[in-house]
Structures are given as structure tokens and as C-alpha cells.
């Protein structure tokens, strides 16, 4: 089986100079002799288009008779990786030295495709310019053509029954809820259905609950993370993020411990993080209202949740003892009278506008625009992911691309995110007009160079 190693490239000469001899030695040691290395270099000043470069490389590989290809970043050197043929689309770059976490749906770096399958899905989209999302889009194409993929399982809570449904505009308002200037505990059982990309904003976020102003909020972000965030009296921000996760059913527990001035965030039983406030600081509380389902009900950026809430509970002046009990055994161990807010959406009557607070220690919630929905018990969320083959790679140093967990590095990436989001929700991947089918129309071959089994192709995009 002949292998084509396709390397998208621009400007990292030190990496390329090291890569080619390293790979030749590696393949020699692994006794892989039937291969071609195809480097596709992008000339000109347009944003780097990894997908298109790989499409071009694939055409070359096809001409050279490669039965399968490996799309290979130039800054990744295999320490221990298996490049032998498999008939499944496979993600090979899984572990890195120095250590780098990859998300569950990572489909970049070093990926293996049987040539026939890459042809069948129409190749990469050419529309992703700059960093990001061309690999996510590729996974959508694999899914659409029913290629066999792997599964990643996410454990969800076992709660089920009637929930309040939020549209992104709807919310529930609680007046005088818990006070973050003292110890308090918040528990919410919720579902995020989806998070839309709004290009009018720099990044996307939906709040599950929020005390607005400098929002004290639990939210799902455009980076796929669930975060809890608050600000201190000097307006410094503190955030705790999970790793990347899909929109799903979760239960979150947040405990603010006033004497220690630290807060803890748990999601689905896992400790996500604990953060202390800086010396002498307190939590900045700018509102005496708490909202479910929006960041702020007024204003253009509501950060509205499209999803559901099943349970919501809050305990004002919470003690360590109550917190440990809830952490150990769940909220069922508490009596509603021990809490400040205890709502049960199971008994909400659609249209009534009032979500009853069963604790007896606080006001009822005012419901605006919410309907009810039934949530079945689903303990496992199955997400299709690329097949994995364990492989360890050494990363060569380079300037970090992508996000820094607050905003996108370049505007192109944001556009990519919007395109990907649109395609993923509509399921129109435009693969009959965008991909291998039109690559020759959008690129100009400038130079081709071959030495032994190393091929260099220079292209410019029109």
C-alpha cells in the first residue's frame, strides 16, 4: 500500500528542513519504503488555507498512485506512531511532547485517509481561511457520507421529567436571591441545546444563570467550554473553564466560601476548579436579581440560553457542612426549607408565569417566555469522533495560533467558526461545489519540484 504524506507549508523553513530528513529516517526504521512526501507551499500573502493546500497535495498523491494519505503538519515529528494502512479514517496525533491537551473532536495534526474515502467525501472545504475549523468541517463531511467513525461518550445526569424550555429570549427572574458577598451554594441541572454564532459579537456565550452587571454567571461558551465566572471589587475577572465539551445535559454545583474567599466549580460530579480571590478583594455584586436563561434580559447581548433547566437550587449563607453533604450525596439530601431557592420545574404550569420557590425562604421566580419540555433519561451522550490510533509526536516550537480563551486571535477564525456553525446546523456542506471539485479553479500552480520521493508543489490562491 503506497502512502502519500501531504504537508501544508508556508514560511517555517527550519521546521521543513528538519521534518524531511527526520521522516525519511523514521520510515526507514519503521520499514515503510513505499511512500511519497508531498509538500504543498502557499505563496503570496493571502491567509493560510490548510484545507486547500491539503486538497492540492491529495491530487498529487493520487497522480503518484498513493492508496492512502496522511495529512501531516510540518511541526509534528513522530516519536512513536503507526503509519501503516487502515481502511478507516484515523486520527494519529493524539499525544504530544511537550504535553498539549487536545479536544475530544480534534481532527488535525496528523490524520490518515484511504484515498478512495477522501475522494468520496469531496476533500476539504476551500472556504476556511486562516486558522481553524477546516478539520471540524471535514468531520461533518465524513459523517454525511456515513464513514465509520469512533464514538466519544459523555456521562449525563440521570434526572428526567418536565423542564422549563428557554429560547434565547426567555428567562426566569428571582429577586433578592443569594448574596455572593457571603458564602453561598448554587446548583443547577440544565441542558444546552445549541449555541449560535453571532458575528456582531467578538465571541459567543449563553448564560444558564447570571447575576448581571459584571456578570456572576455559569455559561456555555463558543469554545465549547462550560465556565463559571465572577469579578472582584477591583473588577478583575476570575473564570473556571471545563475542557471542550459538546452542548449537553449537565448538573453544575458552585460553592463560594466567604471566609476563605474562594469558589469551587463542579460539573457532572467532577471538580472543574477552585479559585481564590486576590488578597483583600471581595466579590463584586452589581444586582439584586438572578436570572435563569439569560446573562442580562435587557440590552442587545442577552447571552440567552437555548436549552432547558430541570432543577435550580440556591443556599444563602451556606456552610461547609451543607456543601459536603450535597457534594457527597446530591441535593436530595437537603430539605427545601434548608435552602433559599428550591424550584421544581416538574410542577410548573405552562403559562402561569410563576415558578414556585418551595423553600419558603425566598421569593418565587417570575417566568417570561418559557415553555415546558420533557427530558427523557439519557445517561450517555454519544458524539461521533474520528477513529483514534495512539501516536506520540514531538512539537517543534512556534507561535501559538487559535484562541486564548477570551477572544479569537484573528477575525478569519471567527468567520470560520460562523461558517462551520451554519453548515453544521443546516447540514448543507456544499461539498458538490466546494472541495476537490473546484480546487483547480481557485489555485494557480507556480512550481513543481521533485527529488526522489520528495515532491514540492508551490501554489498561489486566486
Amino acid at each position, binding site marked *: 500500500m503506497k502512502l502519500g504524506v501531504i504537508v501544508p507549508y508556508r514560511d517555517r523553513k527550519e521546521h521543513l528542513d528538519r521534518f524531511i530528513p527526520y521522516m525519511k529516517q523514521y520510515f526507514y526504521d519503521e520499514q515503510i519504503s513505499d511512500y511519497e512526501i508531498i509538500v504543498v507551499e502557499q505563496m503570496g500573502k493571502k491567509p493560510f488555507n490548510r484545507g486547500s493546500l491539503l486538497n492540492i497535495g491529495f491530487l498529487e498523491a493520487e497522480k503518484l498512485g498513493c492508496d492512502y494519505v496522511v495529512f501531516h503538519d510540518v511541526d509534528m515529528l513522530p516519536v512513536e506512531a503507526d503509519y501503516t494502512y487502515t481502511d478507516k479514517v484515523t486520527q494519529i496525533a493524539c499525544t504530544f511532547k511537550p504535553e498539549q491537551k487536545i479536544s475530544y473532536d480534534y481532527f488535525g495534526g496528523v490524520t490518515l485517509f484511504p484515498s478512495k474515502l477522501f475522494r468520496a467525501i469531496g476533500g476539504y472545504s476551500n472556504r476556511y481561511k486562516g486558522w481553524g475549523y477546516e478539520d471540524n468541517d471535514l468531520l461533518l463531511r465524513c459523517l454525511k457520507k456515513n464513514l465509520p467513525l469512533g464514538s466519544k461518550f459523555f456521562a449525563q445526569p*440521570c434526572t428526567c421529567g418536565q423542564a422549563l424550555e428557554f429560547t434565547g429570549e426567555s428567562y426566569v427572574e428571582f429577586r433578592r436571591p443569594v448574596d455572593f458577598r457571603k458564602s453561598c451554594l448554587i446548583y443547577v441541572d440544565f441542558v444546552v441545546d445549541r449555541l449560535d454564532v453571532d458575528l456582531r459579537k467578538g465571541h459567543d456565550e449563553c448564560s444558564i444563570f447570571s447575576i448581571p452587571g459584571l456578570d456572576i454567571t455559569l455559561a456555555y461558551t463558543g469554545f465549547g467550554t462550560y465556565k463559571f465566572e465572577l469579578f472582584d471589587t477591583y473588577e478583575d475577572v476570575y473564570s473556571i473553564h471545563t475542557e471542550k465539551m459538546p452542548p449537553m445535559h449537565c448538573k453544575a454545583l458552585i460553592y463560594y466560601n466567604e471566609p476563605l474567599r474562594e469558589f469551587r466549580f463542579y460539573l457532572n*460530579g467532577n471538580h472543574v476548579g477552585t479559585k481564590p480571590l486576590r488578597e483583600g478583594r471581595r466579590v463584586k455584586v452589581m444586582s439584586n436579581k438572578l436570572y435563569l436563561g439569560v446573562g442580562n434580559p435587557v440590552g442587545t447581548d442577552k447571552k440567552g440560553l437555548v436549552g432547558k433547566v430541570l432543577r435550580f437550587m440556591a443556599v444563602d449563607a451556606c456552610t461547609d457542612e451543607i456543601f459536603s453533604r450535597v457534594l457527597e450525596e446530591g441535593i*436530595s439530601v437537603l430539605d427545601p426549607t434548608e435552602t433559599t431557592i428550591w424550584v421544581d420545574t416538574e410542577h410548573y404550569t405552562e403559562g402561569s408565569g410563576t415558578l414556585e420557590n418551595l423553600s419558603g425562604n425566598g421569593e418565587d421566580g417570575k417566568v417570561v417566555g418559557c415553555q415546558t419540555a420533557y427530558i427523557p*433519561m*439519557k*445517561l450517555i451522550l454519544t458524539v461521533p469522533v474520528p477513529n483514534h490510533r495512539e501516536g506520540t509526536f514531538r512539537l517543534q516550537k512556534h507561535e501559538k495560533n487559535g484562541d486564548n480563551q477570551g477572544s479569537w486571535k484573528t477575525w478569519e477564525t471567527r468567520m470560520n467558526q460562523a461558517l462551520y456553525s451554519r453548515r453544521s446546523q443546516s447540514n448543507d456542506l456544499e461539498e458538490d461545489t466546494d472541495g476537490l471539485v473546484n480546487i483547480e479553479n481557485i489555485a494557480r500552480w507556480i512550481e513543481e519540484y521533485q527529488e526522489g520521493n520528495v515532491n514540492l508543489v508551490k501554489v498561489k490562491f486566486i
Partner: protein
Amino acid sequence: MKLGVCVPYRNREAHLEVFVPRVAEYLKMQGIEDFCMYFGHQRDTKLFNRGLTKNVAAKYAFEDGCDYIVWHDIDMIPEEGGGADYSCPGDKPVHIATNISQMNYDLKYFEYFGGAVLFTKDQVERTNGYSNEYWDWGMEDDDLFWRCYLEGLLRVDEYCFLPDTGYLHFNGEDASVEIPVKNFPGLRNFSSKSHTVSILCRAYQQPQKQEIYLLGDQNRKYIEYPIFRIPGYDYGISFNNSKTLSLQFWNSFNQHNYMWAKRYDQQWSWVTVTFDVDNRVVRFYLNGMEVDAKHGHGSESPMRWVGRLKSYGPQSCFLGTTPSVPKDDAARYFKGDIAKVRVYNRVLDESEIIDLYRTDPDPDDIILNLDFSGENKGIITNNVVYKKEDLHIPHSMLPVRKPGRFTCLYHRDEGIVNGRFAKGEPTARNERRYMLAMQQGKVDYKQDGIAQLEGKYKYLGTDQIAPWAKMINIETVNAPS
């Protein structure tokens, strides 16, 4: 081969959330690809019937194409790298929940058959699954253990086999043997010097005199049936109505000392005790092995005593009785068989004791050597019957086990708390059913089990709660109050 993970379930949502993903992950890592979980979910609020819900889960598992099952508690999670082996059992069911976190990674108790047990379809048919008649906490696991025993599905290792051996039978009414000291000079005061006593015997319960000891019985009492005794403040070896072989002795301050080992009746047992007077150490052996306190199977051995051992003067020794209690007292007569009685004038060590059954005693060491193949000179027998048969001396019967480490998820204790049943009467009822009916052969388990589920529950529907897990919802019929 498809594995069915069969779990009784009610009201343990927190555990369900952990169990479904983590056990699936463990099974996949172990290379078991083809499996499904079946939760027998009792939806009514009557007493929880674990046996019935486990049977229901197993029934659906087999109907769903499973070849073998594991009956599994929902709060037991196999630890990564802990060795729990879920592969198909061989010719006997396998118990794998052997090292569990709440018992410091040890067995819950010696005969523990809960947590996780693997059965083939055929083995389920033979035991007829669990009993459906254990309501609320307790003992449905032990009942299954006994069913395996009756079906020959336990490990029964043999300590030794003595063909064609004579023994005396004691009827429990008026049978006894007296061993006068004048006929055996070495016996005088032997018990206050270093010595070894070794007896091969088989005991029978006598429920008409005193019921088998039950934790749930308000009137419970220990009765020691005398096997070998020096009367007075009795020194001796006994069988006790709590299924125990025991040793009692006194020191010169009249302080009572006691050692014991769990043993079912109707099993030939070789009991040996050694007293080392120089070091004041006593040891208790059953079938050649020193007992230990692990798993509640025996007392700590060795044990130390203080002071000097009591002297008994020219007292006769007795087999099967003691003159220390009145004639009509329950503790007066032993019912059972005694095949060999040996008393040595020194401490035998471990290697000598394990080989006792096949070594003839050295005449320099032996004070008393009774063996009932023929008449024994010098003893006085009353109403005993001489018998002869092949003697099989078994080690304690246990399930086949493959060690596995499990974490117990937190839950409130439902079993025995402070020496009493946390759940009170329902558990006491289960105990009576197990110990007094099932273990006494009064229950026909082929008429109470997985083959008799029809009519015992109402099927409410199945929920697919995960790609590999189904919740089988039922309501029980005829639950007791």
C-alpha cells in the same frame, strides 16, 4: 459471547450516573465488547426485593441474547487495574467482588457471595436464580450461595480422606464416654502443663433444645454442646448452636478464655488446640490450619492468657457430655460423631498438625490415643453406637473466586449496625428464612426462583437509558408489609 450486567435498582440515581459510564469503560478496557446492562427497577414503594429484581434483569438479559451474566450491585465499581475479571465462568459461578474499599480492600465476610457474581445461563437454570422471597435487606445473596452448594457449584476442597474408619455416634439424649484418669496416668493434670488436644468429630445441630443462633431473635442464646470436657470450670472443646467449634479454658484466677472457628454441622472436622505454658500461648487449628479472625471466620490465633492454667485434680475426662450442668439442661449432651481423640504431652507445631491424619503418634508424646475402629480399653461407654464409614474431611466450602478490586460508592448503612439489624424485622425474617428453612433443607428452591417469576411482578416497560443500558421497570405483586 454476550455479557448481561444485571443490577437491582431503586432510588440510587447518584450511583446510576457513575455506574453506567464507568463500568462500561472498564469492560471495554478489559476487551469485552459485547455487553449490555439491565437494571431491574422496582418502581413501587413496597419493601425492596433484590432477589426478584435481579431475576427479572437476568430474564431480560437472556431473552436479549446474553450468553452469561454478572449479577452486580450498583454501588460497586471495578477499579482500573484492579484485576476484576468479567469473562465467562467455567463450570462453576465466579465471585469477583473480593477486595472492596469499604472493607479495607478485603472480603466482606468469609462466605460473601454478593457485589458481583458471574453465572452462565446453565448455572442460573440449575440454581433457579435467586429466591423471590427475600424482602428488604439481607441474605438473598447467601441463599444463592446455599443453592450453589446444593447444586455442587461451590469449591469444596478436601483436607483428607480416611477410608473405612470407625467412630462413635452420640445420640444427644444419653450417650457419653467417661475416661477415668486412673486408667490413663498421663491424663492427670495434663491440662495445666504444655499439651496438645486433637479431635476428629462431626457435630449435629439440636434445634429442639436450642434454636440455631439468630441475630434477629430476641431470645437468642449460645449453647455449647460438649465434645471433650474436663468438668468443673469446664475445660474443653464444644460445638455451639451458632455453627461454631469452640475451645474454652480457665486460669487459676477463674478467668474464662475462649477461642472458636466457624463450621457448619454435619461436616467432619479435625480440631487441634496447643497450649504452650512457658510462653502462655494457645493456638487453635481447624483441619490442620490455624484459624484467623479475618472475615469473621474465627478468633485470633495465637492467643495469650495470663497466670497459670487451672488444675483439675483426679477428674475423669468426658466425651459427649459434661456433669457440670443438670441432666435436663440443653448443654448436657452432644449429638454427633467422634472418630479420634488424641492428647499429647507437648506442643505440636504447624507442620506436625497438618500431617496429623497420616502420622501415628510417638509413644513418648502421647497421653491418650482413642480410635474407635475397635474396642478401647479403659474407657466407659454409655449408649454410644459404634459405626464405620469412609470419612471425607472437607475444608470450608467457598465460591470460586477471582480477586478483583472494587470501590464502594457512598451510601447509608443498611445491614448490621451496632450489632443489630438496621432494618429490623424484615431482615430478621430473612435471617429465619435462610438459616432455619433454606439451610435446613426445608425449602424447595426449584419452586422459588427465576422460573417462577410469572405473576410475581407487573411489567411496566423498558427505557433505553444509554446505548448499552436498559432500565426494566416493574411493580411487585404481593409484597409483605
